[in-house]
Structures are given as structure tokens and as C-alpha cells.
């Protein structure tokens, strides 16, 4: 079976992003970019399915400017077989990304689509579910375990109260949570090999999708800063402060 994995190029998770002083946007000058951590987990899961003989081919897709080919190559180095870039300009909203991915799903006809549950820039947590609705596929979001069994997949999901398991008819969508797996590091020979793997580029028009904006970002600002606190010297002083100064116990 064929597995499609969607990946996004985002600011590296170690970077503390700030709003520009004029509030027009976030300051992304000279910051390190990387594959979204949840997407990396998605790639790893697909590659493991291939290694287990469940998946026959892993196709990785990214929507974005030409620079996102770097992240597609990273996924290819981790073990994906070929790549697809859908070339867009500027920020693209989740609904549009979902429509573009639906176009790719129609071309590629995968049995399983794996995505990260959210990207750590927009923190929207929408694209996988939206793709599910548009393509009329079942979804196992926030997955911590994925088991393919014949024409169905069982997904254990991290939910507010604990864990929930659902069984989905294939083709289906999985979005990854943190504990699904620990992604491997790409080896140097695999990074070299990845450079030669096939990478096709499509435009939104090729997929019959109009790129439209539903939301306008009016401004950005830093969150309210907490006032610097104090260090207490002992447990006694801590209990005293909580009782008599903060009055929370």
C-alpha cells in the first residue's frame, strides 16, 4: 500500500520567535528553519511501515515556496521514496493546504495519509482533519499507536482523559502526536542518496485549486510578560509568601 506523508517547513523548535517591534509580523530574519517536529514523526512512522513490509511506497509532499524542497529532501533522507512540492507563495492557510493535499491524494491514491497534528508556527491543528472532510476519509488524530490490519487501521489516540482507540476504514488519515515514535537521524549516505530521488513540482492550478485567503493577520504582539519573581531561601519562606503575600493557600 502507498503512504502519503505531508511535511511543513517551520522555524526550528529551539528558536524563540518574537514579534517585530512594529507589530507587522513575526521576525523570521536569519532564523534556523527545519521540518516541523510532528511531521518528522509522520515521516518516521511511514518509513517504519515500509520497513515492516506494510507500506510499499512512501511519498512525501510539502506545500510552500521552493525552499521547502530542503525539508522534502530531509524526509527523503529519512527513507521516503519520492517527493512532491506544491509551489505556493507566502503563507497558505490550512483550508487551502487541505484542498491542495486533496488534489495530491486524487493523483496518488494513497491508502494512508500521515500528517503532523499541528505545526509549531501557526499552532492551528486543522489540516489533517480538513483533508479528512474534503476527501471523505476517516481520521485518527493525535495518534500514539498505528496498526494497519487488512483494509482497516487501528489508531490509539491521546485524548483529554487518557487514550482512545478507533478503527478506521482505509483509505484513512492519521495525525501524529509526540509519543508515536522517536524519529531517526539521517545518515550521510542516505542524505547523499536523497539528492537523487525523484521530486516533482506542481502548481495549485495543476491540482485545480484556487489559493484564497479567509483570514487576515492584522497585527502581532508579544504576550503579557510576567514580572520577574524572587528567590526564596527556604521552604519556610515559601510557605510564608504563599500564605501571607500571594494568599493562594
Amino acid at each position, binding site marked *: 500500500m502507498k503512504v502519503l506523508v505531508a511535511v511543513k517547513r517551520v522555524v526550528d523548535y529551539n528558536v524563540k520567535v518574537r514579534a517585530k517591534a512594529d507589530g507587522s509580523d513575526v521576525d523570521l530574519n536569519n532564523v534556523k528553519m527545519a521540518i516541523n517536529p510532528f511531521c518528522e514523526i509522520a515521516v518516521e512512522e511511514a518509513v517504519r511501515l515500509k520497513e515492516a513490509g506494510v507500506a510499499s511506497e512512501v511519498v512525501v509532499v510539502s506545500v510552500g515556496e521552493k525552499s521547502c524542497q530542503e525539508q522534502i529532501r530531509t524526509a527523503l533522507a529519512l527513507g521516503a521514496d519520492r517527493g512532491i512540492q506544491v509551489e505556493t507563495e507566502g503563507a497558505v492557510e490550512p483550508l487551502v493546504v487541505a484542498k491542495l493535499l486533496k488534489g495530491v491524494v486524487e493523483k496518488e491514491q494513497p491508502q494512508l495519509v500521515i500528517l503532523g497534528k499541528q505545526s*509549531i508556527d*501557526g499552532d492551528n491543528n486543522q489540516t489533517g482533519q480538513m483533508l*479528512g*472532510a474534503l476527501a471523505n476519509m476517516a*481520521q485518527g488524530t493525535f495518534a500514539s499507536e498505528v496498526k494497519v490490519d487488512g483494509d482497516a487501521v487501528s489508531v490509539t489516540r491521546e485524548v483529554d482523559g487518557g487514550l482512545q482507540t*478507533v478503527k*478506521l476504514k482505509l483509505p484513512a488519515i492519521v495525525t501524529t*502526536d509526540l509519543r508515536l515514535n522517536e524519529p531517526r537521524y539521517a545518515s550521510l549516505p542516505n542524505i547523499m542518496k536523497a539528492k537523487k530521488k525523484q521530486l516533482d513540482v506542481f502548481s495549485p492550478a495543476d491540482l485545480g485549486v484556487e489559493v484564497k485567503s479567509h483570514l487576515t493577520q*492584522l497585527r502581532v504582539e*508579544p504576550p503579557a510578560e510576567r514580572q520577574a519573581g524572587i528567590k526564596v531561601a527556604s521552604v519556610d519562606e515559601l510557605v510564608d509568601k504563599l500564605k501571607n503575600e500571594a494568599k493562594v493557600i
Partner: protein
Amino acid sequence: MSTLVIAEHDNSTLNGATLNAVTAAQALGADIDILVAGADCAAVGEQAAAVAGVNKVLVADNAAYGHQLAENLALLIAEVGAAYDNVVAPATTNGKNTMPRVAALLDVAQISDILSVESADTFKRPIYAGNVIATVQSADAKKVITVRTTAFDPAAPEGGSASIEAVSSAHDAGISEFVGEELAKSDRPELTAASVVISGGRGMQNGENFKLLDGIADKLGAAIGASRAAVDAGFVPNDMQVGQTGKIVAPDLYIAVGISGAIQHLAGMKDSKVIVAINKDEDAPIFQVADYGLVADLFEALPELEGKL
């Protein structure tokens, strides 16, 4: 103008997160109806009808909705929601699971995790793990919104007298089924609703040591949370995780024990009223957001703290 709020519940009890979503809906300035979709969920309908400020409660009682499967629920909400200007749900795992499907079926954007309503079409929401707050304006005629519950006070659960109507639409997409669940059982308050939270991190060293938090939690009536590092290490289950991708909490008092304070953890707790950090590393970033920091070995500080409360 009218707003439909999607109730969070377990078929018997209305979850408090719904009350925060009602308050956010009130800020939109429209009449508020609540949709209760579930199986044998009439009791939830009655509780929803008692919430202050609610006009009407719609109850869709059908086996297909019993486990809140997104595939079925989204079809129902998109159908019922077509008559409303806004569809609002709390940003719980159910809300996050279902609402983007609803938005896509209605061909509109979803505005995730709103912190405030600036006007009927403009909202504030956190991006980049809460390091930046964006103000966004929606151009869609219909808004699909999830609400960060800690950013809105709960609506009064009593005092309302909404009418209750049955919704007969039965949508079973037939592509997904519920297999089972393992839900944590605890006598403690729920993490997202507790007024005091005490969380442990990697510094706890193992799951057994989390028992050191029990006595303090008992004395303070606190819920117990954890950092991602503690959950990843297998010390405690996932439902205890506080952070960017776990639970967002904003209690009156948050006590972080053996937690270094990665930005992803801070994103989940920095709106707490008072933050206490106990950590033996005096340079740990958690101290930069803590009102009271205690540089100490937690294995000595915790028993002492329990004894002195």
C-alpha cells in the same frame, strides 16, 4: 446573528469547558444555542438548558454520536450549523478533532484557540507556542471557532431556562468505529479546572517519585500534572502533560517541581496567577517566569513542604 455552541460531555455530564465556550460566544454578541450530540444524553441537554444566557438547546441523541466520532459529528454540526453565523466549541481534544472537519465541510477557515473576541470578526490567538499573539480578522460569513478555555471565565451553570428541542438527523459516515478507551481515574480535580496544580518534570527521576507530589496535592486540593519530558520518559501517562501540545492550565497556583521550563511547557502554564518553581539548577529557565523560586533538591524540599502545609 446567532451562535451555536457545541457541548463537551460524556453523555451524562456537561463538561465545564462548555461554560467557557458559552462566555466566548456571548462576546460575539449573538443569541446562543447549544448543540448536545451524543447517545442517551438527555441529562446533558437538561444541564445545558440551565446554563445562564442560553436561548435554546438542541439534542441529537443517536448511537452514531455516542463516542464523539469526528466523521459522524462533523456531518451533523455542518448541517445544524448551516443556519448559524458562528459555530463555537471549546478547544478540547474533541473540539480540536471535530471542528476543522466542520469548517472544511462549510468551506470556511477555522479560527483555533481564541484568547479574546475583539469584534464579531476579529480575534486574538496564540501562535509560536504562545510567544506571539496574533490578531486575525475573518472574511468568512460564517465563523468556525475553537476557544482556549483558560482565557474565558465560565458562564453560570444555573439560572438559565432554555427550551430543549430534539434534532432527528442521523449521520453515520460508516468509515470509523470506536474500539475502546483507557481513561485515567482520579479523585483529584481535573487538571484544566483545578485551582491549584502541582507538576513534576524530568527531575522527578521516575514514576514512583511522583508519589512525593501526592501528599502536597491532597493538602492543597491540587491536580497533578507533568512536563513532556516526564511523560516521554514514561513516568506518568499522557493525559497529565501540560504544555503547547498538551493541556493548557491557568490555576491560581502552579507549582513546578523538577521542571527546567522549556518554552513548550511554559506555553501551557504561564497564565497561572502565581507560579512556584522548585529546582536544584538555579539557572533553569523556569525561574524566569516563577513568582517564587526555591533552589533546592526536590527530594528534600517536597517532604518538608508537605509537612509545613
